[in-house]
């Protein structure tokens, strides 16, 4: 789950200003800006933005010893999603109980693949993404 908001997309060139320039070439006519009434138009044309989404998810291995001892817990990992969607720089931020599930969580997150964040069609590297893995042995209900 991304920890930081997507960057503000860059705006397109100022359309109003372009039309004003055109107007100066046609001094005896109604300006294009007036014709289109661009001053009143709320132009909110944004470049396409895509945010991180998991494409390939790996369930961490539940350590056998933890299963046998009925140990449950969680691991909070932090990592970078590269431009190609792969994961780098994975570290443990927090875990409970300490170290029992850390390797399993790191092993899993390193195999994740994300749809990279894109701004204006350009994929970006995103650092400090955090994900929490829960390790539970609860049987499933069937509502």
């Amino acid at each position, binding site marked *: 789950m991304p920890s930081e908001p997507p960057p503000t997309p860059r705006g397109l060139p100022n359309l109003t200003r372009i039309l004003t320039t055109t107007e100066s070439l046609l001094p005896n006519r109604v300006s294009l800006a007036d014709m289109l009434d661009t001053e009143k138009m709320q132009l909110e044309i944004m470049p396409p933005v895509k945010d991180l989404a998991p494409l390939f998810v790996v369930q961490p291995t539940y*350590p*056998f010893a933890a299963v046998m001892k009925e140990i449950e817990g969680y691991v909070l990992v932090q990592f970078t999603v590269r431009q190609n969607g792969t994961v780098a720089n994975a570290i443990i931020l927090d875990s409970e109980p300490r170290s029992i599930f850390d390797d399993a969580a790191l092993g899993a997150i390193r195999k994740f693949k994300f749809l990279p964040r894109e701004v204006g069609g350009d994929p970006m590297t995103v650092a400090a993404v955090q994900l929490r893995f829960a390790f539970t042995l609860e*049987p499933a209900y069937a*509502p």
Partner: protein
Amino acid sequence: MRLELRTSLLLTLALFAADPAQPAASTSLGSTDALRCYQESMFPFSNQGIDFCNNAISHGDLTRRDLAATYSNRGIIHAKNGKFEKALEDHDRAVRLKPDMPQVHINRGNALYHTHEYEHALTEFDKAIATDAGLLPTSLFNKALTLIKLHRIQEARSALETALEADPESRRIKGILDGFDSLGEPS
């Protein structure tokens, strides 16, 4: 006829809910107490769903199947709130009403699991397995966890392998099975 329609609506909702890719169908189905009871049983963070279940049961207009499902769903809410005795009472009623529904056996088995009655829980999961192949992965997964509690490791592994065959996409089953595999053949 109307009652039959309500039954099919409840089952449709259950199918939608089982697939996280599908939107919640509750808005198009309207809201009944039985439906709200079902919804609350999926995320029973509090006791508040109990009232919907009570209303649905007391109205007396549910089909036998929906009544069993509502008792079972109320049992889930009780269990999630740590009231296992009440949960078991509801699951007992549900099983008596509709013993051919795998859900009632799965949920009763879970209540027994939580009260450490593992052998009885196993019996319930086996009944669910025998009743309907549709919920086979869930039944087998729960059976495996129960077998682990009983230290019947080889049987647990076998149950997980069969569960994974029935639901190859289940990451949860695979996660635990991988833990077994990392040790090689269990003793």
